[in-house]
């Protein structure tokens, strides 16, 4: 059994490529073989935003069982605030590789021990962990987009938006987070998730409609600003 205590955290920024309709992961794909060459026994944690299935595919491509995913799960511009007292720590590794699962869990524990709180650690498959990051980010985009559209409506009809927003968000199930209208944020994760739904068959009220709306709302708000 391999005794290894070394980790490499791959944390490149990834942009959404409109051409490829996917995250541009070229920097990660270039770095991984170099990491394997420089530190062949190290476990590699991918923190970057990646398409669904990327971690699994890289493991297959590089013929190695040492890559797991540890998504950042932080808000843009609030990385430090969200990382020091994280609401949860998610790691994803193939359940068929128990040694890798143990290494991923240990890495999560290191992050948890450095945190100011006592966050829950969630261990799941690599693709499930990737999906968790995309869905969480897309939900934030949806909520922000909802209040942007409320703002547009109030302005058009001459209504007082602050009063409406306060009345809506004092409902504890809705909450005040992300309720301040803004210029619109390009929801990169929503774009990526929209692509991931391409091979999902529509059933009744198709979830694709919501995901597509999250992807489009930021774009339309910015173009109208």
């Amino acid at each position, binding site marked *: 059994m391999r005794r290894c*205590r*070394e*980790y*490499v*955290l*791959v*944390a*490149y*920024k990834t942009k959404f490529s409109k051409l490829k309709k996917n995250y541009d992961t070229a*920097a990660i794909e270039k*770095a991984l073989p170099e*990491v394997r060459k420089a*530190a062949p026994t*190290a476990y590699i944690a991918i*923190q*970057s935003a990646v398409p669904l299935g990327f971690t699994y595919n890289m493991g297959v491509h590089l013929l190695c069982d040492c890559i797991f995913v540890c998504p*950042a799960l*932080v808000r843009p511009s609030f*990385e*430090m605030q*969200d*990382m*020091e007292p994280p609401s949860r720590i998610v790691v994803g590794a193939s359940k068929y590789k128990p040694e890798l699962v143990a290494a991923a869990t240990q890495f999560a524990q*290191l*992050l948890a*021990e*450095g*945190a100011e709180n006592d966050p829950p650690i969630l261990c799941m498959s690599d693709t499930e962990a990737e999906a968790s990051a995309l869905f969480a980010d897309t939900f934030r985009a949806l909520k922000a987009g909802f209040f942007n559209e409320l703002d547009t409506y109030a302005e058009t009809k001459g209504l007082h938006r602050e009063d409406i927003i306060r009345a809506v968000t004092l409902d504890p199930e809705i909450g005040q987070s992300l309720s301040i209208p803004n210029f619109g944020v390009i929801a990169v994760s929503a774009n990526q998730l929209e692509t991931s739904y391409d091979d999902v068959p529509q059933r009744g009220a198709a979830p694709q409609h919501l995901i597509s709306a999250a992807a489009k709302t930021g774009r339309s708000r910015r173009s109208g600003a």
Partner: protein
Amino acid sequence: MNRKITILGNSTAGAAAAAVLSKHNTVTVTMDPADCADAASMCWLPTKPNSAS
């Protein structure tokens, strides 16, 4: 047991993770200065190899 963690990349989230992991007495966090300079400066981190004491 001492653990070595290397951070590669230019994301601020990576630098934030480095800051959290550096709190451990038994963890040595190394950031690639070429990759991480901008991100580390946003998180008030040194870009030289950092061994938490």
